[in-house]
């Protein structure tokens, strides 16, 4: 079910507000995210401690055991990006001495601090009481929290998650993460929050996580249908929102994914494609797999370039950045800490290159995609360094055409709409020609 709604115009935009369509689950998602910002804004007056942590390898269920209000700086940055606020924040951070070469999520976050720490929804965000540095799949995370710590002097606890360099999780890696959880992370969270750790509470949250994960996987895999009822990249951003952030393990998230599943099931029954911001998808012509995060500052414009051409993204690696669930992993309440370790080790950016390539090839095959599109993000070396090899390898192994575009996460200076549109149009032509050639043989 989808409901047309009116977007509240920004104070400086005299343009007629566009009509935006969203599914009910998308509204529910927005409500959850905004609710979390309010919770953060009022946490200290409600005598709650505030944690900050990152999306990949986030230990949401564990943080909930200590009743932390939970902030995720990447989400703050992307929300500011979508609201067109990040450009100035980045420039403020650069004026404050941060290099133009480094991650714009970091600079948007630091710029937000310089502007008085006003969050995306307009409410002031509190200074975190603890920084849980889940060093999973991204080197920049470490420097990011060191920078914040230098500014705010808050307690920081590191969870070093070793990289899957050999393409597997060894016992040594698992034990290392587990030990850090037991001997470093939990004692620090107990100390900061004043709450004693209760493993049964963790199990309870994890039961909720597993339920939500089941429905999320079902939703993402629904794109195997033709036509796909979802967009596995642009639409998936809404779907992954709750589970990748402050809601995994909550009954609200379980409800969200259950509603989402029903909606998608209904769309499949009706033979419908995805919902776009402008209503029903005009009809599936191209099925794509996308590698790399989206651009947030021109998110809708970017998405429109796809659906205007009849393209649907059936699977994306970005939708696995906060957890890879579609190959069977679920949080396991029977082995809660071991399962948290396994989760952290298995996040997408913690996989090595051969694993990433295997995953993309598998998606192209299982989702019957026409090809691969890589959106290479200037800010994100973890994703981007080496993506041109991924492109070559995937083309070689699948015989499907691949294309490469470049943008950034939240820096509007690095989104060249005309350039991207041209490339996409050429790519769609290429897919078409390839299809014709294949049909002729």
């Amino acid at each position: 079910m989808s409901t047309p709604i009116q977007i509240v115009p920004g104070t400086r935009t005299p343009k007629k507000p566009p009509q935006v369509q969203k599914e009910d689950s998308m509204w529910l998602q927005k409500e959850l995210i905004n609710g979390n910002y309010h919770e953060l804004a009022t946490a200290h007056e409600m005598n709650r401690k505030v944690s900050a942590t990152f999306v990949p390898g986030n230990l949401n269920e564990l943080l909930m055991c200590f009743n932390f209000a939970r902030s995720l700086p990447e989400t703050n940055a992307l929300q500011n990006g979508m609201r067109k606020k990040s450009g100035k924040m980045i420039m403020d951070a650069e004026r404050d001495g941060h290099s133009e070469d480094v991650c714009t999520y970091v600079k948007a976050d630091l710029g937000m601090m310089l502007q008085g720490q006003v969050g995306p929804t307009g409410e002031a965000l509190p200074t975190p009481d603890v920084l849980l540095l889940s060093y999973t799949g991204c080197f920049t995370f470490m420097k990011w929290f060191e920078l914040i710590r230098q500014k705010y002097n808050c307690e920081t606890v590191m969870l070093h998650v070793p990289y899957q360099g050999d393409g597997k999780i060894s016992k040594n890696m698992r034990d290392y993460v587990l030990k850090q959880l037991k001997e470093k992370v939990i004692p620090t969270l107990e100390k900061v929050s004043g709450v004693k750790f209760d493993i049964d509470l963790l199990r309870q949250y994890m039961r909720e996580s597993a339920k939500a994960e089941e429905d999320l996987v079902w939703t993402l895999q629904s794109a195997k249908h033709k036509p796909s009822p979802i967009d596995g990249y642009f639409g998936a951003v809404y779907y992954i929102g709750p589970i990748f952030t402050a809601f995994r393990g909550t009954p609200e998230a379980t409800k969200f994914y259950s509603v989402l599943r029903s909606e998608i099931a209904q769309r499949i029954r009706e033979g419908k494609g995805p919902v776009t911001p402008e209503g029903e998808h005009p009809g599936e012509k191209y099925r794509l797999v996308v590698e790399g995060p989206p651009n947030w500052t021109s998110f809708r414009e970017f998405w429109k370039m796809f659906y205007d051409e009849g393209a649907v993204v059936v699977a994306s690696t970005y939708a696995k950045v906060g957890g890879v669930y579609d190959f069977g992993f679920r949080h396991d309440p029977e082995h809660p800490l071991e399962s948290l370790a396994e989760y952290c080790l298995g996040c997408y950016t913690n996989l090595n290159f051969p694993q990433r390539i295997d995953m993309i090839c598998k998606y192209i095959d299982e989702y019957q995609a026409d090809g691969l599109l890589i959106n290479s993000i200037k800010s994100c070396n973890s994703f981007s360094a080496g993506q041109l090899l991924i492109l070559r390898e995937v083309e070689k192994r699948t015989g499907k055409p691949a294309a490469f575009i470049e943008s950034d996460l939240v820096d509007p200076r690095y989104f060249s709409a005309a350039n991207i549109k041209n490339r996409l149009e050429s790519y769609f032509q290429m897919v078409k020609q390839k299809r014709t050639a294949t049909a002729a043989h």
Partner: protein
Amino acid sequence: MNTQEIIARCEHLFEDLRFGAVKDWKAAKPGRKAIGYMPIYVPREIIHAAGMLPVGIFGGGDQLEVIQGDAYYQSYICRIPRSTIELGLTGRLDCLDGMLFPSICDVIRNLSGMWQIMFKDKYVKYFDVPQNYDDAIGGEFYVHEMQLLREDLGKLAGRPVTDQALRASIAVYNENRQAVRDLYAYRAAKPWQAPTSELYLVLRAGCVLPPEEHTALVRSYLSEAAKETRPQRDNARVVLTGSFCEQPPLSLIKSIEMAGCYVVDDDFQLIQSWLLDEVPVTGNPLEELSKAFLHHSTSTSSKYDEKKEDKGKFLLRQVKERGAEGVVFAAPSFCDPALLERPMLQEILARHKVPYTAFKYSENTGQMAPIREQAGTFADSIKLWSAA
């Protein structure tokens, strides 16, 4: 050999991107193997104990034209991975039987996977090091990782790497590190006698020579340099930091010196001075290497500082102990570790009233005039302040 001859030899080794010294070493005894490593740190002792030659790969420098390597990277990625791929694809690294990619940043990390795909016949390992410094947590993890490397190299060598061999290699590297420490101390005491452009070449020789030979070379340079009488200038004494991975061109180092700076400490070849003290040659060798890494190793931006107070401590100590008057932040373009660290260090230096300047380079930077101008102005301003 006198100083000039030593430096000429080191320069030849530095410029030889076909790694003739490695080939010669391998050819001297059939069956010998060489293992490459990228910045910033791997326990070379394990490679050495396996009877292999550890070879430092620090990109292609400014002499290598990168053609194929550019096809693998976007414009916003630093240059070292693309020139390293160029070295690999043009057969220059064929003399290596394996490559180690240490934990330094996401770019080098991803390069390990690319190498696995592109050079399937070679041994390739991403070598993780702990960011937790407790012996029972990070230490245990690290000992296991080293043990894996030891087993892998043992298989490659066709014989196990024994504790005895490891202890002997630790002793060899202890001597090498002591020689390098002496070289740094000498340069700091008399920078006009051991200019950094020379020290750099002497260090780079350590990337391709066996450690025993390199130690002898360092000792020989120290003794020959002491015999020289070179003019002492009224230069500003600076610590250069941020150049621990992709290396600046030699001409950049010379430009900084010509502009009126004596570099009295740096982080060019961290691996050679990573472990700060002698590693015990008794006990369990991997545990000793682990303890040395966890508790007695250098500080750099790829390592996590557990406490806020630790940030910048090492740099401040370098400034104090080397008698530096300022700090030059010289980082490669798009180097996440160095560039993200820089504002934190600058804030600390400012608090301690240590002057600093900053610029970026790439390994093939050709325009030295702006750098000379900036370094010169910095040196002048230091001299003016101290005169005041």
